[in-house]
């Protein structure tokens, strides 16, 4: 009995080894060229994990998808990442670890702090292009950050799009008034000065500015300030959820008919999930079509199909997933353009390829052809929450800042 079992075990082991060997050999035979590596410092833990997990899924799914399409220029793509816990020193450690073992021409950075910290090294390396979760306005400074780009509009550009929308709502020259509510962080303060200047250009009166801690709960004093000035619009920035919900609920309880708007990180389903029907009417700027939007396009459809394939149970995919996918799309486009031009994948060549992107059709990820300006994609659309449907619906056309 024992001998029979052993013999059967050996047979199974032999078959298993053969299958394993064939399994390992098959991709090697199909794609025996050197892979192009997508590197990433990804916050799978820590305070930004709510987005990092979906960003990781987006990059993983895009890698699988692009490999199913034959890779880039016939070369397979390999996605290599490390968790950072959203801490700059650990993000840099992940960068060093990955770049020590691989030569990724493109890299996902998880925070503005990391992107700034690594900039000097990136500049001296001249071998990599970087983008990621940050929409910081500072990164549009081509002198200081020549090899970093923003996968959408910068925060200042997001405010620019919001203000253009508000200006378009002014009837008969009676321009709406606006209040800015932002967090006391680098993230929160990023677009404020530029946006005040832009509001003045458009003739919009910024009647109040309120600074709070991110995640504040008690905002009753701030709400009273807003009640005094009665702004037509309140634009939030530098938050994910709180205190946006507190402001909205309390101001509505006071009978104010103010409209509420937010930027990228505060314009996802979380607001609807947490606020329910109170979220109705909240508006956000989003440079990409939502996963559950009615719009479609070849790339948007591919994204949805790949997301469904990789995790059929997941359902709705947050904007962090789409943002990561779009990052990888841009990397692919840039690498392809650089290789097509017969150039090496250096930082300079890839930055040049990025700057050459003009009227690029993103296949439905963004609703209109886009042109790169100052290492960013200054495009967006205003969406409004339909609480009954549990999703965002477009209320403006796509706005492309010049």
């Amino acid at each position, binding site marked *: 009995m024992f001998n029979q079992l052993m013999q059967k075990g050996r047979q199974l082991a032999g078959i298993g080894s053969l299958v394993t060997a064939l399994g390992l050999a098959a991709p090697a035979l199909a794609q025996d060229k050197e892979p192009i590596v997508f590197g990433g410092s*990804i916050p*799978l*833990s*820590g305070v930004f*994990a709510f987005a990092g*997990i979906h960003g*990781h899924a987006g990059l993983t799914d895009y890698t699988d998808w692009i490999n199913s399409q034959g890779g880039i220029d016939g070369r397979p793509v390999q996605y290599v*990442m*490390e*968790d950072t*816990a959203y801490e*700059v*020193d*650990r993000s*840099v*450690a992940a960068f*060093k*670890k990955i*770049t*020590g073992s691989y030569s990724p021409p493109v890299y996902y950075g998880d925070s503005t*702090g990391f992107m*700034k*910290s690594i*900039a*000097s090294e990136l500049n*001296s390396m001249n071998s990599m292009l970087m983008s990621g979760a940050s929409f910081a306005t*500072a990164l549009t400074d081509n002198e*200081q950050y020549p090899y970093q780009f923003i996968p959408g509009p910068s925060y200042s550009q997001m405010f620019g799009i919001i203000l253009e929308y508000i200006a378009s709502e002014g009837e008969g020259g009676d321009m709406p008034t606006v209040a800015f509510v932002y967090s*006391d*962080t*680098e993230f929160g*303060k*990023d677009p404020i000065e530029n946006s005040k200047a832009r509001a003045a250009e458009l003739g919009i009166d910024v009647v109040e500015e309120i600074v709070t801690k991110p995640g504040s709960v008690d905002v009753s004093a701030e709400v009273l300030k807003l009640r005094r000035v009665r702004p037509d619009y309140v634009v939030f920035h530098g938050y994910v959820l709180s205190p946006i919900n507190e402001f909205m609920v309390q101001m509505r309880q006071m009978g104010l008919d103010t409209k509420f708007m937010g930027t990228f990180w505060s314009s996802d389903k979380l607001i609807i999930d947490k606020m329910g029907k109170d979220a109705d009417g909240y508006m956000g700027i989003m440079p990409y079509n939502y996963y559950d939007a009615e719009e479609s396009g070849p790339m948007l459809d591919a994204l949805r199909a790949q997301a469904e394939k990789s995790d059929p149970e997941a359902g709705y995919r947050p904007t962090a997933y789409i943002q990561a996918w779009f990052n990888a799309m841009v990397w692919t486009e840039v690498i392809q353009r650089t290789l097509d031009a017969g150039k090496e994948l250096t930082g300079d060549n890839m930055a040049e390829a990025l700057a050459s992107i003009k009227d690029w059709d993103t296949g439905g990820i963004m609703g209109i052809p886009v042109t790169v300006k100052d290492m960013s994609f200054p495009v967006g659309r205003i969406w409004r929450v339909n609480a009954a449907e549990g999703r965002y619906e477009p209320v403006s056309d796509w706005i492309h800042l010049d």
Partner: protein
Amino acid sequence: MRIGDAKQTYVADEAIWTTSTQKFWFSILLLGLLIFPLLANSYLLYLGCLVGIAVISTTGLNILTGFTGLISLGQAGFMGVGAYTVAWLSTNTGLPFPITLLLAGLMAAAVGFLVGLPSLRVKGLYLAIATLAASVFLHFIFAEWESVTGGMEGLSLEPAHLFGVTFRSDFAMYFLIVPLAVLAVLAARNLFRTRIGRAFIAIRDRDISAEILGIPLLRYKLMSFALSSFYAGVAGGLFAYFYRVVTPESFPLTMSIFYLAAVIVGGMGNLLGGILGAAFMTLVPEALKLLTAALTPFFPNAPVFMSPMLEIIFGALIVGFLIFEPHGLAEIWRRVRRFFHLWPFRS
């Protein structure tokens, strides 16, 4: 087995290295630190530099908290003062790093001196809150004094330089950071052979008794704060040169907690404990990632599940040390040494 270490003079009693064995192992350590950058890759060099900065700051906090018994949650703020001093001086005056780092230390010491004033009236948790308030105040200055600190955008700076030599790479920075870390620890070791250092310990053990013995509490408590902050300022200056960008968010409150945890985990009132604690707090999260790397070939989704788990394991390790070895890593190290000293007999 070592059987005795008789000291026959006061000089011998006060010596830093009392036996030839200690001298031998210290020489080996220095040699190892010298050879390490020649063998290590960029990642390990980076971690080496991080540990070096952490050792300086932890040693500073150990002087204050471990040796003088004054708890502080302001270490990140003091590091920020040092970092901004270096960034500002480097950008506006172009001074070489020995001068900027010295001034960073002095500036942080001056701030630490002021922050230490409440320590004359309060101690324990009350002092922790006072230093926490100072940390918040410093953060406010970093964020709002735009003409000097660059506001929320912060300051970028050129690499450290001296006599035409530029410390740009991790390799070069290692040779700036690690010798300074060794120097900082040796200076601290020397400190506790002096009247000042012993006064700190006397204050920690019983401040009223210390005062009766003729130790002016005002002078020595403030001195401890200033010294500790000097260390933090130098560490912050090195941090600035290392990352070459300084923003208010570079020095969050969690950083102060990190250093306090390093002192406690390593062993309060023990310089070796500070070193081990700094290394533990910096390297263990990285080492734990090896678990994820080992699992990923079998479970491709392992990073998603393991990453939050590693944070829990790291936290559990800290709690475990506090429960099972309240004297910290230094005590474990002492037991290991004792085992070898007495080998082949049981300790």
